[in-house]
């Protein structure tokens, strides 16, 4: 089969890439390059800048607050507004079929399996947004087996392709996987080293192509916490749930919720969150109990009804946040006005939020823009929007009903491989906390606010949006008409 594949794509790959081409710089005097860099943390960029990378006043850096749960496939989908996924990851629970799809090692293997054809493609549709996304059939293998070598090859390929494409194109999009792999498997300084290397390549490329004006924008799907998890902190939720009285199941049909709480845990990758599916009537009970698990920081889920009726003019959506076995906070959301209803009497400082209520004030109603300003740089950035969005069908058809966010240094074990479990244990993402959430938006194309919602990317860069729809043939989705901000 490999022979047949080689006879197919290797030959035209050599042929097309050996054609010397020149375009007319007057037809595309400006070229905008958008690099989607998996797992590039805001803090890593700061490290690299401190070492001289991306120097000059034209570069603008913003914290990019990643959607929750903080995981790649779902986040790229939401950021690039590509067609929705079935679940946050390849492995997901299908409530219609009442079964876990792509369970076990298939989901893991997807990360290294070559995509031999679009028709046999297990990659998320969001990958189609990129003009360049891999350097061949064995890219996945090489990225995980020898990430430094793979990074060198990827950067070479990226700039080789860019050099040709920029002869005729005004916009070029590319995806780099290795920064995420470096974050999971190496040290923070290694990621910063790699970024310094990328910065130098960008500078050199710009210098060697004075015939056109190049703008570069780097954006990421999430950050990286660089908090190693020792083997004893690899959580198997299937084993933890029974300890707090929740039966771990693999399907929901035929069960009586009055007989006790149960849930389907999804655990296929090594990330610091877990999604649970359960009976709608059991969301609160499962959440309370899951929040008692020692490794768990916060559990979020939808509430059927408010604890206190705010007397809102319209029915609201209600969301709860549980911690340590009790409801730590809840809030309502009015979809029509894009307003959040925050109740008094709760310890907002638990979430790093400074919010005081006047005497007799039962609810504070805050519009999304103002609330973003209030919570954008807290320990749980953009908490309310991210909880609401994560539990809604924004970019995923079957979102979890309960989302479990782990404490620092704890992570879902996700998979077992023969030999040691000390694999990809150096850094993580997934949880609600700022660690792993703060990704990057770095550009020399325009001014930026200091903090942005990651899903705002296409609002900031309309040419990218046009390129995705016209050149990449992406049907741009409007998952949440309320996500846009003015950043005033």
């Amino acid at each position, binding site marked *: 089969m490999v022979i047949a594949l080689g006879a197919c794509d290797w030959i035209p790959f050599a042929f097309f890439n050996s054609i010397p081409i020149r375009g007319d710089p007057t037809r595309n005097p400006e070229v905008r390059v958008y690099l989607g860099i998996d797992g590039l943390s805001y803090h890593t960029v700061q490290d690299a800048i401190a070492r001289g990378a991306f120097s000059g006043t034209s570069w603008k850096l913003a914290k990019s607050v990643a959607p929750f749960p903080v995981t790649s496939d779902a986040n790229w989908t939401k950021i690039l507004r590509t067609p929705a996924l079935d679940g946050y990851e390849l492995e997901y629970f299908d409530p219609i079929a009442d079964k876990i799809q792509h369970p076990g090692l298939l989901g893991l293997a997807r990360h290294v399996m070559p995509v031999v054809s679009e028709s046999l493609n297990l990659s998320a549709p969001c990958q189609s947004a990129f003009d360049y996304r891999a350097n061949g059939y064995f890219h996945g293998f090489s990225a995980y087996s*020898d990430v430094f070598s793979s990074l060198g090859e990827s950067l070479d390929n990226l700039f080789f392709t860019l050099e040709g494409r920029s002869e005729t194109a005004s916009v070029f999009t590319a995806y780099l996987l290795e920064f995420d792999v470096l974050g999971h498997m190496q040290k923070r300084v290694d990621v910063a080293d790699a970024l310094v290397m990328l910065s130098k390549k960008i500078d050199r490329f710009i210098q060697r192509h004075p015939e056109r004006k190049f703008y570069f924008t780097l954006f990421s799907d999430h950050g990286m916490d660089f908090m190693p998890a020792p083997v004893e902190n690899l959580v198997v939720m299937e084993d933890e749930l029974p300890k707090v009285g929740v039966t771990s199941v693999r399907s929901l049909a035929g069960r009586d919720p009055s007989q006790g709480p149960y849930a389907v845990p999804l655990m296929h990758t090594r990330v610091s969150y877990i999604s649970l599916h359960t009976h709608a009537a059991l969301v609160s009970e499962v959440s309370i109990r899951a929040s008692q698990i020692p490794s768990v920081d916060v559990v979020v889920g939808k509430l059927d009804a408010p604890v206190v009726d705010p007397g809102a003019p319209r029915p609201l959506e209600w969301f709860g946040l549980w911690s340590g076995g009790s409801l730590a906070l809840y809030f309502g959301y009015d979809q029509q006005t894009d307003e959040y209803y925050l109740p008094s009497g709760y310890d907002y400082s638990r979430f790093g939020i400074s919010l005081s209520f006047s005497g007799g004030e039962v609810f504070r109603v805050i519009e999304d823009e103002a609330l973003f300003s209030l919570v954008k740089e807290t320990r749980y950035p953009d908490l309310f929007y991210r909880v609401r969005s994560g539990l809604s069908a924004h970019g995923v058809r079957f979102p979890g009903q309960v989302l479990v966010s782990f404490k620092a240094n704890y992570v879902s074990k996700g998979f077992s491989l023969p030999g040691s479990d000390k694999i990809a244990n150096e850094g993580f993402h997934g949880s609600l906390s700022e660690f792993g959430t703060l990704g990057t938006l770095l550009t020399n194309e325009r001014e930026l606010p200091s903090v942005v919602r990651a899903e705002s990317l296409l609002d900031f860069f309309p040419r990218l949006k046009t390129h995705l729809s016209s050149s990449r043939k992406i049907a741009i989705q409007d998952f949440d008409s309320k996500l846009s901000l003015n950043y005033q």
Partner: protein
Amino acid sequence: MCHGLRSLFFRVFLGFWICAASVATAQATQRSMSVGFYPLWENTGYLEPHRSLYVGTNGAAFGWHEQAQFGVQPVLFFYRTPNFQLKYQLPEWGAWSTSVQAGAYYLLEMASRAVLSPMYSARIDNPDYRVFLFPVGLSASRAVSDGIIIHQTLTALGLVSSGALQDRITLGYSAVAEFLATDHHALLVHLGEVGFWSHDHFMVGASYRWLGENFEARLGYFYRVMSDSAQAAPLIALGYHL
């Protein structure tokens, strides 16, 4: 950690070909290559014998009266690139067998995006325009000693497009040294320069060629090096001599 599964893969793959060769027919003899391995820029001074047909993934060629050869690159037909080549034997020049070849490749819209796997991207992108390539090349081959053959090709590649590309002619040169270990096995070293004074890229690669009585297989790895970037990729060819 190993030095990359890719390296392991190629070691295993090479081992496979060597094993396959060891069980192949013993009557095979080394044939002269009438079709280059690397597309567009490589060729040889040799032609297929009269009414001989070579069908391979690197090209199909039909010899006519030891004077002419008609060829196509069949794989490119599946990638929206109809093409053909004509090759004519020139008089020997000293010990050199020489030939001249002219070809035509017509890249229909979206040809560059026709790769099966999205894991490959081309530097050229022709979503809404066509590209016509017409290479004209002069090739010379000779055995410089027992077991060593040199192939050289000087090519002028014309490019005309209906879109954003500038129409131009680019000069390129390739050289291949073929080291014949036995009748069945050969190691080849490839070098190439495209553009010269208007430099585009240079190419360097190595390949292995196994030849059975009729069946032929080649496996190589090539680097395309530009001013500030490079690209490396394997290349394979399977062919049959009729």
